[in-house]
Each structure stands twice: as C-alpha cells, then as structure tokens.
C-alpha cells in the first residue's frame, strides 16, 4: 500500500497566507468606510439633508384603441390635478382652506382626501383634487409664492369617445388595489390607474407602457435647481380591435332606452372576430376617469338592472326554443331521426302520463326535421328528446360549447350549465326525471348559457362545425378553428331550417327578420319567466314577469359571414322583440336599406 503523503504543512502555510491576505483586504475596505464616513462624512451628511436628489415620474401615455377600420375609440386628454406636499406647508389646515376657496369645493371633502393619505410619508406629494379648470389653475398660480406646497400636475385622462356604447368591450380604468400592487412584481405602484374590466384590463400591460423618470436636484426648500438625469417614458402600445364601430353603435342604439335590457353579439363565424358586443343597460366609463365620485358609483351599484354586469358573458339564461338547433343536430347525427322522419303534431303529446303542450295550440300537423325547425314545433322535439335521452342531449350541448368558457379575451365569462344524470345526483342530490328530458328538449329545463355561447354555437352551425375562439383583439393569438364531430349533412339541414324560419311564410320570424338580399337564417326563442297558467294577458304583465326573447342568426345562407345573436331580457317574444333587432343589424352590416319604398 502506498504511503499517503498529505503535504499537510504546505497546505497549512498556504491557508495561513490566504487568510492573512483576506483579512488585509477586509481592513482596506473597512478603511474605505472610514474615509467615506469620517473624512467625507459631513459632506455626505449635508448632501443627504439638504441637496437632495428627487425622482419625479414621467407618466407613459396609455395606448390608444382603434376599431377594425382604424377609427379611434379611446384617446388621452390632458387634465390638471392639484398635488400637495405636506412637508412644505406651514399649516396644512390653512393650505386646505385656501384650496377649498380657490376651487370652490367644500372644505370637508378636502379633509376627507387628506385623511385617506394619513399613513403616507409627509414628503410624498398627494393628490388633492382632479379635473381643475384653467381658471382654477391660474388662480393657484397667482398664489404659488405664498403656498409653495401646492403643485399643479398635468395628467392624462382616458376619454372614451363613444361612452356607454363601447363600455362592454373596452371596460374602464380604476385605482389599483393593494392586492394588484403585490402581484405586479413592482410594475404597479399605489395610486396608479389600471384596467378594471374589458380590453383595458386584459391588455393592461401592453396599453400601460413604461413610466420614465426625471431625477432633479432640489434645494432645502424643495425648489428645483437642476436636472440630474432623465429616463424617457415608453408609451403604451396602440391596439386595434375586431369591433366594427358602425355595427357596434347600431347595436347599442337598438338596446338604448327604458326597459331595454339585454345583450347583442355579432361575430364572424369564420374566425371568431367579434364585430359588435353590447350589454344593456350600459354605463358611461368616462365617469371613472376621475377617481370616481362616490354617488355615481353608488348609483351604478344600486341600479336593479346591474349596468356593470356584462350580460354577453357574465349572465346565463335558459335557451328556450333556440335549443332546438342543438336537438336537431344531435338527433340527426345520432340517427334517432332522419331528414324525412315525420311526426304529427296535434298541439300536445303525452309523456309519462303527463300532457306536454306545443306552443301552437292547433298543432303543426305533419312535420319533419326542416319544417319542425321552421315552425319551432315542440311536439317534434319532445320525440327527439325522448329518443336521445338526457345524457346524449348533454353531449351535444357540450360539443356546441355550453358548459365551458368560449375563451374570449376579456375575463369574467360564465360557463353555463349542461344538466345530465350525473349533475342531477351530484348537485341536486336527486335522480333525473325522464319528464325533465322532455322539457330540456325545447330548452326549458335547467340548461343555461351566455349570449356569447349562443353566438358561438350559431357560428358552429354556420361554418359547418368548426369551433372558433371569439376574440376582440385583431391580432390576438387564438387557436386555429377546430373540427367538431357533427354530421355535416345534419348541420346543412339545420341551416336550411333556420333559413325557412326567416324566409318561409310559415316560419316563426317571417317578416320580422328577413333582409332582402342578405339571405338571413335564424332561430327564435322565448323563455317563460312565470308559468303558463298565470300569464293570460301577456301584454299587461309587469316588466319583470315578461318572457325573455332570443334570436340567433347568421347570413348569408350559402357563405355565412356574420352571426348575430340578440337577447332581450323580459323582451316578450323572440319573433317580435329580438328578431327585428337582428334584422336591423344584418341590414346595417350588408348595407341594405330595409324600407326602400319609404324613401
């Protein structure tokens, strides 16, 4: 065995030398501290106390937002705000009294603002008042020598050119919450404005840009002596949306007025681009540009129609007869019926010992798939429902996208609800009753979906069975269209049936949705809000008991370019309330005059 010579003494000598060298360097550095702290100490002490460097932010202008044709939807306008540096005020109460007088605002309001900032360091200027007029700015300027604690700051305000008409798409800005600051990784600071809803929220990072800053040397009174350095702001990115402003405004106009509550979506079925999206009642986002007057906010919260809710994606409704689109596609794809299977509708049918009525009292007579869609025959679809059974109905409802978010690029989408046996046991803790299947077959059961999901399923019918992802940003990265396993022949027949609804004299929306030259196809739906027996005189019913109205449509039949879905909450009937709105929008989109004779 080899004797291990460890050369231990050599190693120990070297360790000793190394440790001495390191301790020596440590001493040199300590002497550096001695030099800076003791020899130059008073110089730096003076620098720290008097000649301060101050960082002033340079706000990055937020990106502009355009519609698909480059028309401006949101811009930034300058606005003057009053800041107060409490550390420079001789007496804060005196300053506030002066400001209240100069601005003609109640003193108590300014005191309230100051209380909100009670916890922040006094040398940090705080925002006292916003939206100053030029004459107020001038008044403060005159007195600036006496009140050096005030500073007028120019801010950029967001101006939504079309107010409430685009609110459901664009959203609004609001003051950042502490939680958002924590999660932003230093990107956001208290007091910043961030997108709270819609496009402003989803694309906040892109729109925001990057604030720059100026470092200035100030004297002990805080007066600026010189600029020390500057980092320019990086402006936010401009965004182009898929929205067509003309169509958006027309849609907003259609839902404008008292007792007009509802949602409209227009979408390109070929790629999922949203052309218009309106939720009514709406709100004026320009009110939020200033840090919001309290009573405006309260009014929005108290409104029984919840204007802040985006009905297109955040509310779910029963589909009513529009569900027959899904039933027909499912029935034909599963071959429980074929195109020529006939049913004789006498106005009612009996299932499980209980009569189920057709909406048409006298009955439709003999119907097959296409004519059943055309006349929205309940009895025909009761039969399809019974043969499919709830689990297969649920399967098709899911294939059409109900029960999951569509993937729209603004947040808050509801999933909707697809009932099946498992759901019944799990959620309701009771078995599914076969009779319920019969109700679901005409869209009256527990099924729920958002208006956007309705547009999405209509798009699948229109484009031949492809799932497209609805989106609002023109160059959003969306997944490519995905084929869904429907029988193409079934979809073709459903499209034809929907065309008949609008264009055949016995269709449910004949005259109320037809646009000559546009070849509109659609389906009506009416959702009962209260039971049949109680609703003898529908016209006289109070608003909140009236039926909901659906109309979902696409055009033109041969090569669909647009899907328009209209939902009118308590609107009455699909054919009378919702269909004419869709008609007006198709006419607008295809630039067709609906009433040439009247000219």
């Amino acid at each position, binding site marked *: 065995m080899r004797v*291990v*010579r*460890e*050369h*231990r003494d*050599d*190693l*120990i000598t*070297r*360790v*000793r030398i*190394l*440790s001495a060298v*390191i*301790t020596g*360097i*440590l001493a040199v*550095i*300590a002497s*550096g*501290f*001695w030099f*800076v*702290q*003791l020899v*130059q*100490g*008073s*110089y*730096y*002490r003076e*620098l*720290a*106390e008097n000649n301060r*460097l101050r960082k002033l932010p340079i706000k990055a202008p937020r990106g502009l937002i355009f519609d698909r044709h480059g028309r401006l939807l949101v811009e930034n306008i300058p606005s003057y705000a009053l800041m107060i540096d409490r550390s420079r005020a001789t007496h804060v109460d005196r300053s506030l009294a002066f400001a209240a007088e100069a601005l003609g605002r109640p003193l108590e309001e300014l005191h309230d603002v100051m209380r909100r900032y009670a916890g922040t*360091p006094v*040398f940090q200027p705080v925002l006292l008042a916003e939206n100053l007029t030029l004459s107020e700015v001038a008044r403060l300027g005159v007195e600036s020598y006496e009140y050096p604690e005030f500073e007028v700051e120019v801010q950029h305000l967001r101006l939504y050119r079309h107010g409430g008409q685009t609110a459901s798409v664009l959203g609004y800005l609001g003051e950042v919450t*502490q939680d958002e*600051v*924590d999660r932003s990784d230093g990107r956001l600071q*208290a007091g910043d404005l961030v997108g709270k809803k819609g496009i402003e929220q989803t694309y906040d990072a892109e729109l925001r840009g990057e604030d720059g*800053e100026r*470092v200035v040397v100030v004297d002990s009174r805080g007066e600026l002596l010189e600029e*020390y*350095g*500057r*980092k320019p702001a990086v402006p936010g990115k401009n965004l182009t949306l898929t929205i067509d402003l003309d169509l958006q405004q027309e849609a907003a106009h259609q839902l404008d007025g008292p007792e007009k509550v509802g949602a409209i979506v227009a979408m390109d079925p070929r790629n999922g681009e949203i052309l218009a999206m309106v939720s009514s009642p709406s709100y004026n986002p320009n009110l939020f540009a200033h840090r919001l007057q309290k009573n405006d906010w309260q009014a929005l919260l108290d409104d029984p129609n919840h204007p802040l809710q985006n009905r297109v994606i955040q509310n779910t409704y029963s589909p009513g007869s529009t569900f027959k689109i899904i039933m027909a596609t499912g029935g034909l794809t599963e071959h429980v019926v074929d195109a020529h299977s006939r049913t004789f509708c006498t106005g009612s049918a009996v299932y499980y010992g209980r009569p189920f009525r057709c909406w048409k009292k006298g009955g439709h007579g003999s119907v097959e798939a296409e004519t059943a869609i055309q006349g929205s025959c309940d009895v025909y679809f009761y039969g399809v429902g019974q043969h499919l059974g709830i689990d297969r109905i649920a399967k098709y409802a899911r294939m059409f996208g109900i029960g999951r978010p569509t993937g729209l690029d603004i947040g808050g989408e509801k999933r909707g609800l697809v009932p099946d046996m498992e759901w019944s046991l799990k959620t309701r803790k009771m078995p599914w009753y076969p009779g319920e299947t019969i109700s679901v077959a005409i869209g009256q059961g527990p099924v729920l979906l958002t208006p956007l999901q309705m547009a999405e399923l209509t798009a699948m019918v229109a484009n031949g069975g492809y799932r497209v992802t609805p989106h609002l940003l023109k160059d959003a990265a969306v997944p490519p269209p995905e084929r869904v396993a429907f029988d193409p022949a079934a979809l073709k027949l459903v499209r034809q049936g929907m065309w008949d609804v609008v264009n055949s004299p016995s269709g449910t929306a004949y005259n109320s949705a037809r646009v000559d030259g546009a070849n509109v196809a659609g389906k009506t739906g009416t959702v009962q809000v209260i039971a049949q027996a109680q609703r003898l005189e529908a016209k006289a019913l109070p608003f909140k008991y009236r039926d909901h109205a659906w109309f979902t449509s696409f055009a033109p039949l041969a090569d669909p370019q647009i899907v328009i879905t209209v939902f009118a909450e308590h609107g009455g009937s699909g054919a009378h309330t919702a269909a004419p709105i869709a008609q007006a929008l198709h006419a607008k989109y295809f630039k067709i005059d609906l009433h040439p004779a009247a000219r």
Partner: protein
Amino acid sequence: MQNISKSISIQPLAEERPQALRHLSSIDLGLALSALLLAAIGLATVHSASSEMVVDYFPRQAGWVGIGLVLLVVVMSIDYHVLLDLSVVLYGAGIAGLIAVFFIGVQRGGAVNWIQIGPWQFQPSEFAKLATALFTARYLAGLNMRVLDVRQIVVTIAIVGLPIVLVAIEPDMGGALMFTPLVAGMMLVAGIRIRLLITAAVLALVLGAGVWTFGMHGYQKQRVLTFIYPERDPLGAGYQVRQSKIAVGSGQLMGKGYMQGTQSQLRFLPARHTDFILSVLAEEWGFAGVLAVMSLYAVYITSAARIAMRARDRAGIFLVVGLVSVTCFHVLYNAAMVVGFVPITGIPIPFLSYGGSFTMVNFIATGIMLGVDMRRYVNR
C-alpha cells in the same frame, strides 16, 4: 491516472461515527457565534430597510434563518466524508438544476435563474455552488502533490467551469463570478507555481478583453463603464452608487439611529433589503456599526481558517477553504461595492442580505465547516 475514491484514505469511518455527537462540545464558538450574530443584525436591518416597502421582509427572512439553522444542525451531524462520497451525485444534481433552469426557469430582472416548485422559488446556482465546492474538494483531496501540475489544474478548472458556463448563459454574470473564488481559493491552497500564476493572469486579461468585446450584454458593459465614469448613467448604476455613498457617508461615526436613515427610509437606496443592506446599516449605525460587522466577518473568516488548519485530512482542508473562499468573496465584493470601490453587480452579503436560497446555503456551509471541525480529533 489515479483512482480518486481509493486515494481518499478514510478507513476509520465506522469507528468514528458514534463519537461524532459526543464532540458537540467541541463546536467552534467563533464561527458559530459570529454567524448567529450577523444573522440577527441582518434581521433587524432587513426590517428597517423594508419598512417603507409594500412588504416587510422581516418575517420571511426570519423564516429563512430558522430553516437555515435547522439545516446547519442536520449538515453538521453528517460526517463530511459521507458528503464527499455523495459529491458526485450532488454535483450532478446541481448541474441538472442549472440545466433545468433553461426549461422551467422563472425570469427575474434580466436573467432566468430561478426555479419555481409550487409556492417555492429557489436559485439552483446557489446550491450548485455548494455541490461544486464538495466535488472539487474531493478531487483535490485525492491528489498527493506539493503543487498541482497542468493537467490537474485543467481538470479542476473544468469541474468549476461547467457550472460557471451554465450560469453565465442564463445570463447571470454576477452569479457566475461567484464560482471563481471557489476554484481560486482551493487551487492556491493546493499549490500553483508562480510561473503558472502569471500565465493565468495574462490569460485572464486576454479572456476578459474577449468577453468584453463578444460576450457581454449592453447593460453589463454599461455598468462597468458607469463604474469608471459615474456621470454616464445618473439614473441607473451611477445613481445607485451615488445614493449608496450618500447613505454610507452621512452615517458618519455613530449613525442616524435605527429606522432613522433618511436615505433608506426615503427610498433613495435601491435593493436596500438585499444587495445594499450594508448601506442601510452604515447609515443607521455609522462607522461604529460597520466596524462591528466587519469584525464579526473577520472572526468568521479567521475561525474558518483555524478550522481548515487543524482539519483531520486534506479533504477537510479543501472543503473548508472552498466554502469560506466563496463567503469571503461575497463579503469583500459587496462591502467594496457599497462604498463605490467596484462596479455594482448583484452580489448579496452573507447573513445580512434578504434571500431564501442564499441564506440557506450560508448556513449549510457553516454547518459543513463545523462538522469538519467536530471530527478533527479522530484518527490523529
């Protein structure tokens, strides 16, 4: 070619184990107490430095110190020969972690050098540093030469070079720089001819010039240039150096008092809970505070040197030298940076700066050194 594992002569392992814990009383108090005191001062300073921030980092750092202490005790009770035997595996895991960063890494300020597992984020480079120290110590311990020959130098550099390259392309130049004291300290102790040292210095200069021209990012060049001409970038690094010097200088002899530093409380100081924590301390406790902290580091370093010199075998010596070299470099560079002697780069100061991975690694290193010391009597 020598057989590495055979040439580490550690036959009496079995009989030593039960004795290990009996030697608890022989813990080196200088090393242990200086580390504890520094960590306590660090906690207080982190609290002061983050008092104007959104988050108070004190509770988190207290958590890290707690975990660090547990790890210290665990590591201390393991025989360091076992660690050396495992060093190949640990080194492999360290390299794997550095490679994993490229696939599942999280970006933080320019470099992708974090891995997130559930709510935990950690920096693989910190742990790779430990593993590399172990593996290099094992290699050098197995050599029985008065001085290293060229081939051995090349092997040593290769062992340390691999993680350096991986960290450098993250790109985290500061992190890569932290591996160099490891190889430098251990090779100097292992023995290098003066002639070779001079050649290496010349080579380093040439390499440095090459890196400057081809390998550096704009912002890194900027930092070096800013160091030489601080007026170049008054808002970036120049601003930081200036603010740090104002903080340190205005502390004068006795400081402005705890939580009273205007430079840090007014948010003039950047990264004041991590890289610039020493500025906060210098401002609030003055030169007196700096001197106290420097003395504690001196105690820590000389204790480590003492442990190295009385270690049982070559492996123990190299292990301690490697670990303490890294700590020394952190201390020296950070302190020099804070007074404006060297360019600013993201190098925290051991036991004082906030940071999870960094704090844990410092305690583990201390634990390994204490473990080496506890086993010094056996077989001598």
